């Protein structure tokens, strides 16, 4: 499964970068996240709960390892999620490109999905992943606006 797109965000890459590295903000940017901790500088661990069609509230243990970190412009992720409803794993890449006063986020992920979610949730996977991505980015945007708005001009 490929998820990719671009999303305009307010603020410079430096501002956004700090947010992206904050597990609390990241948890908001990943809908369904019940728990997310930064286990090491380049490693997040957590639990996600999502529903895909006939599979409701499936819990996944999530490990995200950061690679190729080039602050404040780009990083890649190794994603590994496992649960009773199946697994998902793959790589993702996030890139921040300054544009005007703000930035544009380029994101792409190549995820493999297996088990029950692949077997019976397949036809909803695309739309669910798009929905989750959009919700996540909107949450990030809100957080960013909130912080930028709250910060002195």
């Amino acid at each position, binding site marked *: 499964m490929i998820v990719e797109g671009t999303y305009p965000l307010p603020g410079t890459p430096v501002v956004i970068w700090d947010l992206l590295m904050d597990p609390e903000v990241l948890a908001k940017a990943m809908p369904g996240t019940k728990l997310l901790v930064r286990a090491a500088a380049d490693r997040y661990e957590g639990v996600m709960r999502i529903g895909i069609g006939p599979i409701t509230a499936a819990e996944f243990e999530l490990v995200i390892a950061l690679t190729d970190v080039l602050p404040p412009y780009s990083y890649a992720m190794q994603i590994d999620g496992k649960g*009773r409803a*199946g697994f998902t794993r793959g790589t993702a890449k996030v890139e921040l490109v300054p544009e005007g006063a703000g930035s544009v986020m380029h994101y792409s992920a190549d995820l*493999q999905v*297996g*088990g*029950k979610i*692949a*077997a*019976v949730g397949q*036809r909803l996977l695309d739309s669910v992943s798009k929905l989750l991505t959009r919700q996540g980015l909107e949450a990030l945007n809100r957080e960013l606006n909130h912080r930028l708005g709250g910060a002195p001009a």
Partner: protein
Amino acid sequence: MKPGRYFGERVLRLEDARLLTGRALFVDDVQLPGMLHAALLRSDEAHARIRSIDASAARSRRGIVAVYTAADLGAYWRPGPLLVPPPPISGLVFNTATQVPLARDKVRHAGEPLALVVAESRYLAEDALEDIVVDLEPLPAVTDLEAALLEGASLVHEQFGSNLAAHVHQHKGDYAVARAAAHAVIARRFHYDRGAAAAIENRGVVAQWDARAEELTLWDTTQAPIPIRNGLAALLGLRESQVRVIAPFIGGGFGPKIMMYYPEEVLLPWAAMRLGRPVKWIEDRRENFYATTQERGQVHDAELAVSKDGKILGVRDRFLHDTGAYDPYGLTVPINSQCTLLGPYVVPNYDSEFTAVFTNKPIVTPVRGAGRQHGVFVMERLLDFAARELGIDRVEIRRRNYIQPDAFPYDHEILFQDFRPLVYDSGNYPAALEQAVELIGYDSFVRQEQPRLRREGKHVGLGIVSYIEGTGIGPYEGARVTIEPSGSVRLATGVGTQGQGHFTTFAQIVAEVLGVEVDQVQVSTGDTREFTWGTGTFASRGAVVAGSACHAAALKVREKVLALAGPLLGVAAGELVLHGGRVQSSNLPDKGISLGELARKANPLRGAVTPGTEPGLEATAYFGPDRGNAASGVHAMIVEVDAETAAVTIKRYVVVHDCGTIINPMVVEAQVQGGVAHGIGNAFFEQLSFDENGQLRNASFMDYLLPTALDVPTVEMAHIETPSPLNPLGTKGVGEAGAIPTGAAFAQAVEDALAGSGVELTEIPLSPNRLFELLEAAKARGAA
């Protein structure tokens, strides 16, 4: 056997009252005191090394009686048997890799079982599955047939050094010479994919060990109860007489239920013996998509060499066959494809070579048609393309190439799946074609109706194709017929029944021979205590092989009746007739006795049974045909295609088929109708969609589409009867006939409907989506 009072008649099915009122026993109906329930943990990964399995948390859960992994099976863990060894074809390569009860070192397809949980209820068992911690190291999955054979491909079975499961080359004549002499050579690449059998009843097993009787009873949705009994006895160290396998009523078999031995069939008896309690497992629908065998894809690169007048000079075919993660069923499916491709045609030169390939997908074994449709599709499509290229009518090109009615037995000079030469016993192909042409109204459709409808903007098309179905193969089946003192007749046979109407057709044969009412014949099938010898229900062989055994046993009983009644009535045996449940002098009405009374006299409490004779009116007989026989037929259909949405409606469907002597036309017609439904599913609805990682993406009926009653027209049928000389009934099989040429007929009809669009159909299954894509691609080509 000649038509009579019952034989050949439309006798209503005797089993239907039980089935329709819910009194028929299915495996899931079995309820035993103290019964436990099993669930299996199945791999999410398609290909992975097993690092560890920790079942300790599951074991300690309340209500869990036992959890077994491969390690717990000890010496009982062993790969299953090779069910069908490869036929003796020179140069053949076959790498044996059979399924295991629980994966031990590696997982080779998604859904392969890793652990068995036995609990007080299925609910608890499934909960406990979640407690088992499995650490798998994912490996790259092998899914594409061509990529699987490339150097450096990930290996499903490392010991073979490649993913090649088998390589077989069969040929007759000299294709190169034929090709050099040809007016035209039609070459194409074909993709033909099958799907799940999708029986209405999934698999199920109940195992019970009776420690006092020292007897194991297994209720099993198998098509082969006797081989299951034999295999389990050997595995468990029991005598065959200590194991009773009951295959009760089964809601559809279609092939996958002949597979042996499914992990559950091996694990449950073992668990029941260890735990001293009965254990039940019923497969759920999602499991069925992984845990039950299926049929899948082949890729053919084929070419047809033809003369200017459309005569077949030769065919060459190279194909790849997906056998899945293991190959316990040997080469039955690809050899069926290889042989059935020749169809009813004279093919003087044939060169066919196939490679079976291991992939990280569930195991492939026969599903109704069993590879025959792949072959039929390739040949029929090649003929269609040749006809178009040569400017010959598609019916005419078939007519010109048929094996003629006086050419039997006809030897194709290659080996069939039953290890016997592919020799057709009988048939009349031109007659079937002419009848189909007439029934579907070919001439008026092509000349008047189609042009008229096209002028109205409607895209209608017709498909008409031929096929052969090799049926009724050996080795043998048996039957025992007993006349009881009540006058009712008991008939026991070893084959299992999955809805084919055996309770009726077998009874018809026996009733005819013994002159009793058909409902006086009580049939028992699929219980190894009732009958202990046999192989199973497969290859459209029940009526042919078991039916002939029923016939032979009934004849032996009839001999006994005559031998006993003659002296008793003072009438010469030649003057006795069996009629109305009595044996009777043909000219002296008062000289007769009921069969029940005669049975009593044959089993006296005093006096003596004459030496050399046997008590009772009972006999057992066996029948094994020399080789399989060749059923055949023609399918024709008319379709309408919505050129905008690519939806296809089947307007009419005609089948003219020849299954030799017909025992019960209604049962035959039901088989054909059901087969056509399967075939339509294969042509336009059903497809197992695997991603490149070996994950099945549509393991539910929400996404795996089956045709419904709205999609399947009532088939208009006609029968041709060329009796088979290979059995006393003259009958041939019909179980798969409906499903075999459907894809080929569908492709021809849809292509005909879209004539002028540039669409050429070389693949099955199609779907509205796929057809739409092909239409768009053709449009783009046209515009370029």
